[in-house]
Structure formats: structure tokens, C-alpha cells
């Protein structure tokens, strides 16, 4: 008997609208169908009104879906539609749509006849969730191969059905016909709808998963390269989408944390009587320095958390150097670790004999993820299991981490990934997921926890602060002959994703690892050819490593914007010192000596730099532009970077108000080469958002703190870009600079965060072009710019 894991559409639809006493797994059982490892309970989002007696979880356990079974990836329904199951998450950049495109193309089915389910640990294989902008670069390949394999299997089935060889069959839009007799045809749904493939795949890990079929050439792809609209947008626009923040379960309660008032405080006592009589009060949970209040209703939990009397012991003196003293502190600190410098040629000798020596230092403060909706999760402890509803981009890591933290078998824990406010990286969504699970176990009821705004903005993980020291040597012709880079990052104790011994609740309850992570400071990512070059990096520790609101974690393109701000600002300073046009100066560095291993990358870099210059109608001349007499002066800046295999070059055109110091970036241009483009319009919007995220970091974002706490705690004290700052025009140019642009195996590289990288430098370079004043300290808020202009007697 064939077990039915290829669940018919009508069953799925029934489940989608069913009451939640029945999971899909249970449904299969009660239908008399054999239960197998493949289930899809989260096809339907598990929430709704109380009348949907929702969400008693199924009996479990929840073993990992077997990535070597084709049925774990693709379900074909009797109505000739398909559902794809992938272990990724979509942070709102259209990756889910792109997955459907690549898989539809390989399977040969119309895009609108497919759907995709992502990131639910019990029904989608563990592809790690999101991160590193590698969704298409890495995970897209097994998706393509398994879809191609499904097509191959269907062709073989049709071959048997029609008794003709496969090479005499034609397949289009999920219909297979006999080439010479097109009336003989069968749909995918007729061939397999509602039944299992039962095809075993190979591959030593998920990324290597493959069948026997080969993927299509680029020239054969029909859906890739088109721009179907993102399927998730209508529900986000009409209010019908259901998010992790919306989940409701019977008997659920609400929790709010009470954080230590200052860094390094220890809990003396909690006075539960201060809130016991409040309406809806359920419980105070207190362990180590972790404190939370649980109430029946959300507003009751908020009120109780505010009212709870907690006695904390503060450290004798404040521990932090203050945000004003941060860079002095970083420069003076003894590094906790230093990398072995990468070096080529003889930079010291070249620098000491340079025709012109250029030196500069740059500073980048801590910046936050600061999600627009504070961290949250809901955990359900029914049936001695734990189900966590979360928007965490790494749902699989969250599941594994929570299982370890609670010492539960992994297969008794599952994470259902749902949409959420995104912070792109190691956000506090990790922390909230663990807290919800911890509290659910303590309370014995489903617990929804959400951080408050001041908690999110103060305690969310930070992108590390940096100082940079750069030196460059120009020869008598203005060629760059030596480049020396030294970075210091305040990154000791850098948090990984979903680590059961570093998430905040683990730290606060004392379950933390003995040795903090070493952290890192990155080096510039470019393809410049400089004969004598050195890059050295150091990591320093803040005075408090654990239980600190200044904890660091990956922020979108971790370290990229910081490092590229320094590196590409400095290239601009060198170009100015050489009295060379900034684009021409960069192209000189990119065209030199192209016969080495990086020739491929260099060729693509040249194409991208030229495309950005062309699209912006770049006016070839050295910077700065002579300052005219008006209040508003204008300039343009250029910056370029390489991220993994993606190349980006950007132009910012700015207006600087000499009276106020306000910067308005009125136009942005981005040339972007991420290889094969799956969905050009979705990509353009992703690039626009990433650029403006970079612009927000350039102009506004800075974590401030005094000696004992973070003082940037809301949108007034941690300002970000607003509508008032939006550029009047953005041009995104999609480039394919591959030296053999028509190659049939053109890869798809990453695009989620590359465009963040050069933005801050492009703006700094444009300010210099407009004013002749170099701002070497981020962010470029009006008061800082105005002060610099006054110093230079420009204001």
C-alpha cells in the first residue's frame, strides 16, 4: 500500500479552514491513511478566533523531514497544481516567489499553479532558514535539482502510460503529450496527483541533494527572469495575512520582561505582592537576573511589568565608557584577539618612500537592528512538546537551540515560521523565542511574549562599532602603490544565532558558556590591484561582555557597511590626493594586472563600475566640486564593493545645506551584478530597500549610552531615515558582467544585503565632493556636518 503523503488539495483546503484540534498529521490518521514522516500541519497558519478551538498540537514527535525523499520537497495535487516545501524563510524580499519561479521552471509548471511552504521545522527540510544572502546562491540549487528530478520521474511515468520513449514526449505547463500525437496527453495531476513519488534522492548533505535529472540551461528557463508579483503582498496590503505576532491559542497568556535597569545589575528580590492583586495577574517568573510577569491579557501584562517592584543591586560604578568616549576606548583597549595580517609586497618600505602619503582614521558607532515590531514569539507546551510560533529567520536553529536549552528531545520541539517585522540578521527574535519556550514551560500554558519598544531598541543585538586607520602611498604619477588597513572592532563575545548558552535568557538565568566568542573585524572586500598591501584586524572587548545591552550580533551584511565606509572613503581620499576622477581612479586599480585568479571577479567589477557611472551620467572630474555661494551645495559620490560573488557600485547625489548641515540624498544609482536574475522587479525593490537601509545608517543611526545603560531607547533617541529623506529618484541597473555572458550555467548569486555595503561611503564621498569637507565619523547627522563645515569655514 502506498502511503498518501501527496495530500490531495481538497484535504489540504479542509485543513486550512479546519478547526485546529486536528493537525494534518492527525487528519491523515483519522482518515485511515498511513502516517509517515511527511506532514504539513503548518500549511494552514495556526491561529484564528477562539471559535477555531485552535491549536492543540498534534501528538508528535516531529522528526526531521528526510531530504533524500522527493516527497519531502514537492507535492503534486490531483488538480494539477504543485506545492513546494523548502527550508528557507522570506524576510520580505520575495525569495519565496523566487523559489517558486526556479522550481516551477525546472518542473515545467505555470508559476500560478504552484505554492510554496517555508521554514516550518516539522514539514520542510532543514535548509537553515535565511542568512548570508545565500538563498538562491546556495539553496536554490537543490531546489532546482529536485524539481528537475520530479519532471524526469513524471516523464518516465508518461512514457509507461503511453508506451513511447521519453524522447518522444513533450512537456509544457504540467501537461505531457506524445510529440507526434498531441491528443495523447496526461497532466501531472493525472499521473501522480495525490500520491507519493517514492523516489529516493542522493547527496551527502541538503545542499548537495540531487536526483538523476540535470537542471535546465539558462537559455531553457522561461519563468526565471520574469517578474511575477510577490504572492505575499496582497495579504500584507488588505490585512488578511497572519503573522507570528497574530497567533492566538486557547488558554494562552501574555508575558512581558522586566530587564535589569542598568548593565551588570543583579537581582536581590522581587516583590510579587506589588502586582498580585492586579487584574488578570497569573505569575511572576524569576530566575537569576531574568524576570517576567505573566497575565491573562496583553495590556495587563504590560501594566504589571511596569508596576512590579524589583530590588536590583547596581554595580558600584558604571561600566561603560559612554558613547562619546567609545572610540577613544576602542583605540586604547588591548585587543582580545588579532588576526595575522594579510600582506603582499612591501607596504612599509613603499609607504616610507611615497611621493605622497595619505593617512586617515574613520569611526563607526554601534548600530542596531531595531525591528519595527519588537521581538516576540508564542510557545505552546501542550502534550509534553514545545511548538514555537516565530518570525525568526533561522527557524531550524531556533528549534535546535530551544531543545537543548530546555533539554527536550529535538523531535519534541518544532518551530512554525511565520511572517514578522524584520531586522535582517541575529535579531532579538532569537531571544524572544527562547523566552517564550522557557516561560511556557514555567507557566504550563501557551505564552506569548513581546518586548516593549525601549527594550527592543536598547537590548537588541548591535552591529559592532569600529575604528579604522588607513595609510596609502601614491607614486609621482598618482598611482596607488601601497595600501595599509587596520581595523578595530568592539566585537568580543559576538553572539551566534540561537545559541542556547548565549541567548539573553540563558545569560540572565546563568546558563552561559565559559568562553565568549572571539568576534571578528573584517577586511575590505574589493578587487583592487595594489602591489603592496596589508590588512590587519583586531577585536576589543567592551568592559561588560555578558548581560550587556551592547552585545553584538550579525547585522545585515555584518561588518560590510562599516568596513566599506572606511575603505571606499579612503580610496576617494587617495583619488582626491592624486587629483584623479574617483571612477577613473578605481578603474585604474581594477584593470591593472588582470591575469590572476581574480580576473573573473575583476572583469565583473569593471562592468559594474562602468554601468553605475554611465547610468548616473557621471561627470568625470576630480573631487571636490568648487563650492558655490548658495546655502545648498551639491555633489556626487561613488563607491564600489564586492560581496561574496555579487558586485555593487553606487552613486549618491547629495544636497548639503550649509546653514543647517542637513544632508538630502536626492538621487541614488546602483549597478548590481548578482549573476542570473530570477525576478528583476523584486530584485530592484530589494536593492532600493537595502540602499535606503544603508542611507539610514549613514545619516542617522547611532546607539548612544552612558556609563551604565543604553540611552537610545525609542524612535526619538534612535532616529532612522523617514519619508522626508527619501531620494527623489533611484535607478537600479541590473548588470551581467560575466566575461561569457551567455554561458548556459550562469549562476544566481546573492542579493539580499549586498547593496547595503557601499552606501555609507558613497554618501561620505558625495558630501566631500559638495563641500570639500571629509566626514570620517558616522552618522552624518546635521549637527555633526554643520560643525565640520564651520571648522572648515564652509558654513
Amino acid at each position, binding site marked *: 500500500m502506498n502511503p498518501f503523503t501527496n495530500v490531495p488539495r481538497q484535504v489540504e483546503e479542509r485543513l486550512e479552514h479546519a478547526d485546529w484540534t486536528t493537525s494534518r498529521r492527525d487528519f491523515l490518521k483519522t482518515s485511515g491513511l498511513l502516517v509517515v514522516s511527511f506532514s504539513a500541519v503548518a500549511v494552514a497558519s495556526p491561529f484564528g478566533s477562539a471559535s477555531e478551538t485552535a491549536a492543540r498540537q498534534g501528538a508528535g514527535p516531529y522528526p526531521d523531514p528526510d531530504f533524500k525523499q522527493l516527497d519531502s520537497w514537492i507535492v503534486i495535487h490531483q488538480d494539477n497544481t504543485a506545492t513546494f516545501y523548502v527550508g528557507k524563510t522570506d524576510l520580505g524580499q520575495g525569495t519565496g516567489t523566487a523559489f517558486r519561479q526556479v522550481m516551477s521552471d525546472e518542473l515545467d509548471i505555470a508559476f500560478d499553479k504552484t505554492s510554496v511552504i517555508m521554514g516550518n521545522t516539522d514539514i520542510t527540510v532543514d535548509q537553515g532558514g535565511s542568512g548570508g544572502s545565500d538563498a538562491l546562491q546556495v539553496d536554490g540549487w537543490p531546489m532546482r535539482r529536485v524539481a528537475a528530478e520530479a519532471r524526469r520521474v513524471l516523464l518516465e511515468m508518461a512514457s509507461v502510460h503511453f508506451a513511447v520513449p521519453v524522447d518522444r514526449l513533450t512537456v509544457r505547463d504540467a501537461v505531457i503529450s506524445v510529440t507526434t500525437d498531441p491528443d495523447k496527453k496526461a497532466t501531472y495531476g493525472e499521473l501522480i496527483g495525490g500520491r507519493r513519488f517514492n523516489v529516493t534522492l542522493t547527496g551527502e548533505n541538503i545542499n548537495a541533494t540531487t536526483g538523476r535529472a540535470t537542471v535546465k540551461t539558462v537559455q531553457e528557463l522561461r519563468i526565471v527572469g520574469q517578474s511575477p508579483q510577490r504572492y505575499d503582498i496582497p495579504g500584507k496590503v*488588505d*490585512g488578511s495575512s497572519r503573522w507570528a505576532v497574530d497567533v492566538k491559542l486557547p488558554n494562552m497568556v501574555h508575558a512581558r520582561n522586566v530587564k535589569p535597569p542598568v548593565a551588570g545589575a543583579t537581582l536581590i528580590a522581587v516583590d510579587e505582592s506589588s502586582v498580585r492583586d492586579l487584574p488578570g495577574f497569573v505569575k511572576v517568573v524569576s530566575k537569576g537576573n531574568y524576570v517576567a510577569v505573566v497575565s491573562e491579557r496583553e495590556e495587563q501584562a504590560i501594566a504589571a511589568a511596569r508596576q512590579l517592584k524589583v530590588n536590583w543591586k547596581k554595580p558600584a560604578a558604571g561600566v561603560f565608557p559612554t558613547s562619546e568616549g567609545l572610540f577613544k576606548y576602542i583605540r586604547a583597549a588591548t585587543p582580545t584577539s588579532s588576526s595575522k595580517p594579510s600582506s603582499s609586497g612591501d607596504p612599509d618600505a613603499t609607504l616610507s618612500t611615497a611621493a605622497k602619503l595619505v593617512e586617515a582614521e574613520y569611526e563607526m558607532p554601534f548600530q542596531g537592528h531595531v525591528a*519595527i515590531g519588537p521581538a516576540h514569539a508564542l510557545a505552546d507546551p501542550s502534550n509534553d512538546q514545545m511548538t514555537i510560533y516565530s518570525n525568526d529567520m533561522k527557524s531550524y536553529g531556533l528549534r535546535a537551540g530551544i531543545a537543548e536549552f530546555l533539554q527536550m528531545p529535538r523531535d519534541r520541539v518544532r518551530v512554525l515560521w511565520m511572517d514578522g517585522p524584520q531586522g535582517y540578521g541575529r535579531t532579538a527574535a532569537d531571544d524572544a523565542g527562547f523566552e517564550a519556550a522557557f516561560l511556557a514551560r514555567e507557566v504550563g500554558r501557551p505564552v506569548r511574549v513581546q518586548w516593549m519598544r525601549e527594550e527592543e531598541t536598547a537590548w537588541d543585538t548591535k552591529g559592532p562599532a569600529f575604528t579604522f586607520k588607513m595609510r596609502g602611498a601614491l607614486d609621482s604619477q598618482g598611482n596607488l602603490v601601497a595600501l595599509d588597513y587596520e581595523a578595530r572592532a568592539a566585537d568580543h563575545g559576538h553572539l551566534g544565532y540561537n545559541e542556547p548558552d548565549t541567548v539573553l535568557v540563558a545569560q540572565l538565568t546563568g546558563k552561559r558558556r565559559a568562553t565568549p566568542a572571539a568576534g571578528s573585524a573584517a577586511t575590505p572586500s574589493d578587487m583592487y590591484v595594489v602591489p603592496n598591501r596589508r590588512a590587519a584586524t583586531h577585536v576589543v572587548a567592551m568592559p561588560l561582555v555578558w548581560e550587556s545591552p551592547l552585545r553584538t550580533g550579525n547585522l545585515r551584511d555584518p561588518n560590510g557597511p562599516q568596513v566599506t565606509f572606511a575603505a571606499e572613503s579612503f580610496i576617494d581620499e587617495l583619488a582626491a590626493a592624486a587629483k584623479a576622477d574617483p571612477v577613473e581612479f578605481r578603474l585604474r586599480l581594477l584593470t591593472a594586472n588582470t591575469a590572476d585568479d581574480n580576473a573573473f571577479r575583476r572583469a565583473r567589477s569593471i562592468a559594474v563600475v562602468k554601468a553605475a557611472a554611465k547610468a548616473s551620467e557621471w561627470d568625470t572630474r576630480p573631487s571636490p566640486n568648487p563650492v558655490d555661494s548658495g546655502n545648498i551645495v551639491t555633489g556626487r559620490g561613488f563607491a564600489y564593493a564586492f560581496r561574496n560573488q555579487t558586485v555593487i557600485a553606487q552613486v549618491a547625489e547629495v544636497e548639503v545645506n550649509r546653514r543647517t548641515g542637513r544632508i538630502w540624498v536626492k538621487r541614488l544609482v546602483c549597478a548590481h551584478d548578482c549573476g542570473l536574475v530570477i525576478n528583476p522587479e523584486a530584485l530592484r525593490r530589494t536593492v532600493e530597500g537595502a540602499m535606503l537601509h544603508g542611507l539610514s545608517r549613514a545619516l542617522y543611526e547611532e546607539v548612544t549610552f552612558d556609563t551604565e545603560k543604553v540611552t537610545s531607547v525609542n524612535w526619538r533617541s534612535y532616529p532612522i531615515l523617514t519619508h522626508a529623506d527619501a531620494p527623489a529618484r533611484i535607478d537600479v541597473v541590473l548588470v551581467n558582467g560575466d566575461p561569457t555572458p551567455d554561458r548556459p550555467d550562469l549562476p544566481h548569486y546573492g542579493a539580499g544585503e549586498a547593496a547595503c555595503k557601499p552606501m555609507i561611503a558613497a554618501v561620505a564621498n558625495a558630501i566631500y565632493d559638495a563641500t570639500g569637507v571629509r566626514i570620517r565619523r558616522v552618522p552624518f547627522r546635521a549637527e555633526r556636518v554643520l560643525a565640520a563645515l564651520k571648522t572648515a569655514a564652509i558654513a
Partner: protein
Amino acid sequence: MSNVTLKVNGKTHTVDVDPSTPLLYVLRNDLDLHGPRFGCGLGQCGACTVIINGAAVRSCMVATSAVKGEITTLEGLSKDGKLHPVQQAWIDEQVPQCGFCQNGQILTAKTLLDRYPNPTDAQIRQGMAGVLCRCMTYYRVQAAIKRAAHAMVPTASASSKGGVA
């Protein structure tokens, strides 16, 4: 706790809550209306926006008992199964990234267009400035507002920015 009556999206509801409860929690948790979202609880970001008597109001800052007029949430913006032109423009322009803030963007844009059917760039920037987006979709939001203006008043300028899906 006491009974409070609210008219939301054309329907009348009576809820038994502490009258000082911010409207946001009643809409989300008692009436299952998830368009408005908690973003800051401080009136700084706009994620919780609803329309009351034609004005964009931050529901995290309004006590439930203080609401006097009819409330429209994102769910109530479409009429007879047809999306409001602002919503349609949002889809046509493919505005959202993560989408969490878009409730506030859409409802604030709706009230902006009620006031200025053919808004200037400056009116859009000023009128929308208090609605924050962490994915920084501002450029597309502004393009969608112009697109919606043109759809609602065809003589309005329709200078959509950039490419359109």
C-alpha cells in the same frame, strides 16, 4: 472591566475590558483585527494606525473608552470585495518588503489623499514623515501614493517612479 461599545468597519461590538485599555489591544485581541500592529506604544512609528472620523489615529495612544467615532482598520478599507485604490496601488507598485509597517503607511496615505487628492512631493513627504519603515520602502510608498492619486483623480499627476512590475 466594563462594557465598551465600538463601531468598527461597519459593525458594532461590545467588549468587556478596562476602559483605559489602549484601543490597539482591543482591536487585535478582542476583535481579531490584525491590521493595526504594536510597534512602539509611544505614538512614534505609526504601525498601529486606524482611521477614526476620517483622521489617521495611533491606536496605541487612545483609550478604548475615549473613542467616539467609527473606526476603520486596514481590514475595512476595501468595499464590496474591491480593494481601495490605495491598496491596489500598493500591489501594482509592489511596495512592501517585510510589510509590518504597511498598515500605517496605507491608512496614513489614504487620509493624506482624502485631504490632498493631488498631493505635491512636499505634501507627501510631510504627511507621511511620521510613519516609519525599517525596510525603508519609502521610495515605493511615495510612488504608490502618486499612482493611487492618479487612479482616484485621473487628472492627478502620475509620475510613478522607476519601473513598475
